[in-house]
């Protein structure tokens, strides 16, 4: 019983943070909508890039245009969801540099919750809706038969992918404890994961596939479940692979804990 109350309490607090963030964003409405438009533009150009490439090539590594659209839209949804909720970690270097993390530590609430609450990017909703539209388009264009197992696989992919990208943001934040400043090369794994995740990882060759399976498990949230989703493999177990990303998130959280234990204030 106490456990449930605690969870309720955390959710209520997070809801407060969310409404605070939304209300403050709504103070600058023009900027808010321009930002949504800007985000839309970024993914529209990526989409157009895919469209033009497939006008010319039709297939890559056996994947058709609609196969790649499904992969692209699902990864885009995963990334947008992670960015919407876990953006606080992405902006965390500023918090460390300004010494604001001290304040977080003295409050009797979980540090992760407070950092999560520091940012809630509703502007990402534009990209999310757009990804959903591309997904629906890909869904109707593809020959895949939508069974319950496949629908569940998509849900698992969304859950796992959001966990994966959130984990990467968490690592990015955790590294700030050691370096004070944000590390630019982490963009390769976050933005790069979104940008290059539009193709299933086996397009990049065997080595990359191994990297994306054992080092940073992108393959768990797109390549393997896609094999089942697109009917390239009958093994439904592949549909459960995305849940492995939750383990990755746990490992990232471990790194975060080490970072917090290491934290020394910048003193400003």
């Amino acid at each position, binding site marked *: 019983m106490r456990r449930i109350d605690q969870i309720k309490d955390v959710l209520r607090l997070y809801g407060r943070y969310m409404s605070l963030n939304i209300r403050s964003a709504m103070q600058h409405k023009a900027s808010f909508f321009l930002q949504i438009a800007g985000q839309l533009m970024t993914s529209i150009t990526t989409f157009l890039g895919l469209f033009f*490439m497939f*006008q010319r090539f039709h297939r890559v590594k056996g994947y058709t245009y609609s196969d790649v659209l499904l992969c692209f839209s699902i990864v885009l949804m995963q990334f947008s969801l992670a960015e919407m909720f876990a953006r606080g970690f992405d902006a965390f270097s500023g918090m460390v540099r300004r010494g604001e993390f001290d304040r977080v530590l003295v409050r009797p609430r979980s540090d992760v919750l407070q950092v999560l609450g520091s940012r809630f990017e509703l502007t990402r909703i534009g990209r999310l809706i757009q990804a959903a539209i591309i997904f629906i388009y890909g869904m109707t264009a593809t020959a895949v038969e939508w069974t319950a197992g496949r629908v569940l696989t998509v849900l698992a992919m969304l859950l796992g992918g959001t966990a994966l990208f959130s984990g990467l943001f968490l690592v990015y934040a955790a590294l700030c404890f050691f370096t004070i400043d944000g590390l630019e090369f982490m963009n390769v794994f976050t933005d*790069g994961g979104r940008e290059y995740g539009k193709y299933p990882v086996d397009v990049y060759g065997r080595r990359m596939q191994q990297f994306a399976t054992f080092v940073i498990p992108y393959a768990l949230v797109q390549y393997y479940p896609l094999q089942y989703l697109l009917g390239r493999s009958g093994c439904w177990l592949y549909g459960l692979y995305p849940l492995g990303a939750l383990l990755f998130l746990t490992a990232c959280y471990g790194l975060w804990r080490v970072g917090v234990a290491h934290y020394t204030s910048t003193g400003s």
Partner: protein
Amino acid sequence: MKRYLSFFRLRFSMGLQYRTAAIAGMTTQFAWGFMEILVFRAFYAADPAVFPMSFEATASYIWLQQAFLAIFAAWLLEPEIFDCIVSGNVAYELCRPVRIYDMWFARSMASRLSKVALRCFPIIAVALLLPRPYGICLPPSLRHFALFLITLALSFLVSVAFYMWIYVLTFYTISPMGLRMMVASVVEFFSGGGIPLPFFPDPVRRVLELLPFASMQNVPLRVYSGSVTDAQMRSAIALQVFWLAVLVILGRAMCRKAERRVTLQGG
């Protein structure tokens, strides 16, 4: 002229101080270039017959793009300029006996050049060492190399002139974020930053080659590998000069107008 030159020198040597940032940037750009090449390798394997340039030329295109990224990258705008417009500090700039447009032009040039100076040589050196189809190939002749340098310089000026428009427009919109993001993605895509222009369908490509975006990035990268004819090259250079003149003359006039009617924000 002299004061702009010394302003340029100041910003340039300031930019050279950020060496750790340059190393981080290079690592990122290597990863980016590497992934790009893997994508094109997969498409090449899928159907080499419809591949519009040779694979070597594509690889050279990608590495040069990474090496000179700071010349045309749309996201490398000067945050200080935006800050000073938004905060109203631009009032101090207006008091100085310099043309604001020219000063910001010199400043953008300096910070972009300093970034390129730190990054281009290591990237090119490593790309030269990569095995045959994946690395950078040498230009077919010295003449091509000279033309590459000329078009590169022109595309640098066209890019800076284009991005000056964003600063000037900020006088009117105040909140630059959305505008910046939109411009950045459009410019990047249409200038051949996402996929090289030859990969676009022909009718689209023909239109895009006339727009200023192609003059900002596509031209030098293609001239290098010798995949364009002399006539194409001549018209491309003429277009670059044309866009440079248009962007600078109109941009300067527009900036003048904005300066006159600027409302200062805050105290």
